[in-house]
């Protein structure tokens, strides 16, 4: 769905994406993982057109991503960020139907789509009429996901969607998300810093470090055949965290 060919990106003179080539397969879930500053968020910004590559080319399907097509591409992208990115001055419903209204959808089409999405995301009907500040963190992410799916996007981009949630809510939403991804069969790209989460969702895991892709493949691959010490340490560090957490 996405193809990066030798893409590099500088931010104020510093190389943040270093000659990255990557293919994101259609209909699969790809998890981008790595320590902070490894370039995973920048990769995301490149995919949404919020940043432009300084070298190399990005393809969306067969289309080269540029200023001309970015508007059309964005309509095929659903985007969810850590805190949801819901507009606080609009109710959940207004957030979800914003773009549909903008594109002139008929009222009943909007309503039936919202009903479908509420079922899909298991959101109770009274929540959608609230303002974001009146919702719980988990509810906000569900509404945000509804907004991302409203226009039948082909690609879902999720930037640490569960990062700000407490563990119970997080576990519940993880299961629901996995179920939704399985049912929709969409191309999903997910940024996380949690290896377990990446393993849970990702058909493909892309491990990043210092602006490069260090290793990509299945979780089994990465655990069994780490390509270098960085990967070994990264995997080890996540395990240690888990153990020390268990001892507490």
């Amino acid at each position, binding site marked *: 769905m996405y193809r990066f060919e030798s893409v590099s990106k500088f931010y104020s003179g510093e190389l943040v994406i270093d000659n990255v080539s990557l293919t994101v397969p259609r209909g699969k879930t790809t998890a981008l993982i790595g320590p902070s500053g490894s370039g995973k968020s920048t990769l995301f910004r490149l995919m*949404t*057109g*919020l940043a432009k590559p300084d070298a190399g080319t990005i393809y969306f399907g067969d289309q080269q991503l540029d200023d001309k097509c970015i*508007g059309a591409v*964005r*309509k095929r*992208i659903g*985007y969810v*960020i*850590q*805190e949801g*990115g*819901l*507009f*606080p*001055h*609009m*109710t959940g419903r207004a957030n979800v139907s*914003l*773009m549909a209204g*903008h594109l002139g959808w008929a009222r009943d089409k909007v309503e039936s789509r919202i009903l479908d999405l509420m079922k899909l995301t298991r959101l109770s009907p009274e929540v959608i009429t609230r*303002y*974001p*500040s*009146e919702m719980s963190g988990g509810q906000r992410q569900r509404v945000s996901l509804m*907004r991302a799916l409203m226009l039948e996007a082909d690609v879902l*981009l999720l930037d640490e969607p569960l990062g700000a949630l407490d563990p119970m809510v997080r576990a519940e939403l993880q299961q629901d998300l996995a179920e939704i991804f399985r049912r929709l069969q969409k191309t999903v790209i997910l940024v996380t810093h949690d290896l377990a989460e990446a393993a849970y969702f990702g058909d493909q895991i892309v491990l990043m470090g210092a602006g490069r892709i260090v290793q990509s493949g299945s979780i089994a691959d990465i655990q069994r055949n780490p390509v270098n010490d960085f990967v070994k340490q990264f995997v080890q560090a996540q395990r240690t965290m888990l153990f020390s957490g268990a001892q507490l």
Partner: protein
Amino acid sequence: MIFCRTNIVVCVVMLLVARIVAADDVQVGSKAFTESVILGELATQLGNTAGVATVHQSQLGGTRVLWEALRSGQIDVYPEYTGTLVEELIPGTAADLAAIKSELYRQGIGMTQTLGFDNTYALGVPDTLARRWNLHSISDLRKHPEFRFGLSNEFLSRKDGWPALKRAYDLSPTSVTGLDHDLAYTAISSGSIDVVDLNSTDAEIGFYHLLTMTDDRHVFPEYKAVFLYRLDLQDRAPEFIRAIGRLEAAIDASTMTAMNASSKLQKVSEARVASKFLMSRFQVKTDPHEQGFAAQLFTRSCEHLVLVGISLAASIVVAIPLGVLSFLRPRLGQVILTLVSAINTIPSLALLVFMIPALGIGTLPAIVALFLYGLLPIVRNTHAGLAGIAAGLRESAIVLGLSSSARLLRIELPLAASAILAGIKTAAVINVGTATIGALIGAGGYGQPILTGIRLADYKLILLGAVPAAILALLIQGGFGLVENVVVPRGLRIKARN
């Protein structure tokens, strides 16, 4: 609410009608001190009695304001002094009446004969101090550099005032403070200054027990009172010129001092003082045309609301787009913000005076000045409100695919609404205060009683202007609370409460 709105509409209509109707009337101006206002009243009442519709735009400010207003046709006539003409307005002219008259004639301005008194500059000291040090003339002051001089700002800066005096008498006091002429009396009676500049017909000389120091080196020129008028009045209203001609050589110095005293010290209105004089001198019965308290308050409130309302509306219409522009184009934004900040560093009185040549006097230049002052808080808050939107929200809107205009209207401006409204509120409250200065150029409003109150040292009058201005500011503050409920989206207000 509806009542309020109707009131404002009535105010605006009244003012506009007054403007249109007044356009043909003879406009008498006067400077912002009692004697000038009384002379202005005399001319106005005589004009009206002679059947010429005459309007008095009283206490318009200083010499420059009146002179420019006369030359540009904003007013038709005002009282002036020969010394001021020679020293300030038509410098280089010989100090005799014929020469002054012919020079003025060349500029399209006529001058009456002198009214009969000379109101020259003088210096005064408390009589106790004068007795202790045996002071009689200005030369005697040279021996006392420790005396604290409190001089009116106009006297300090005019060529024929302090600079000339200092040079001629070789005075070098250690402390010279510039202050308002009327406040100087209060200051000298409380002992915080020792020497004030006086006008020789000032009512307070006796009241505050001051002694006039004689001008033994004859530095001060003669300041004989005359009326200046536009020559076109000879065709437009010849009866008016004949009417004010009756005042020539009709007022001697003691009469003028007495009239000043009855207005300033006994708090009789200038209109009534003038009316009384006309009765006793010419047996002419005139209408002093005094407004009751409620009517006055209503007129002032209308004028003030018009000043603040129109200027604020204009500021909002211009400043919000400017704020948006400076957010979208940061480099241009720097220029815009610097410019509007620079405007706010111009003192309000100076800004008003700058506008007289282009816009004349009255409501319009005051509104333009207030409009300019209102820009900064709104531009800055609009910019800050937009810049303060979280990056995640801004980017979500971009990635959703909203066009840039839709983002601005549906996302960014609503999110910045609270900040923008705060800017408008600041502008409104500042405008209510600043609008009081509009009275100096004939825009009326609550500044009118404040100005008169300061001139007459009448605290009640000052309060008559200051209290409604403060109440209006509070009402606006409260009113914005209601507006906030409408303008700021509910979702943001809930957040604010949490």
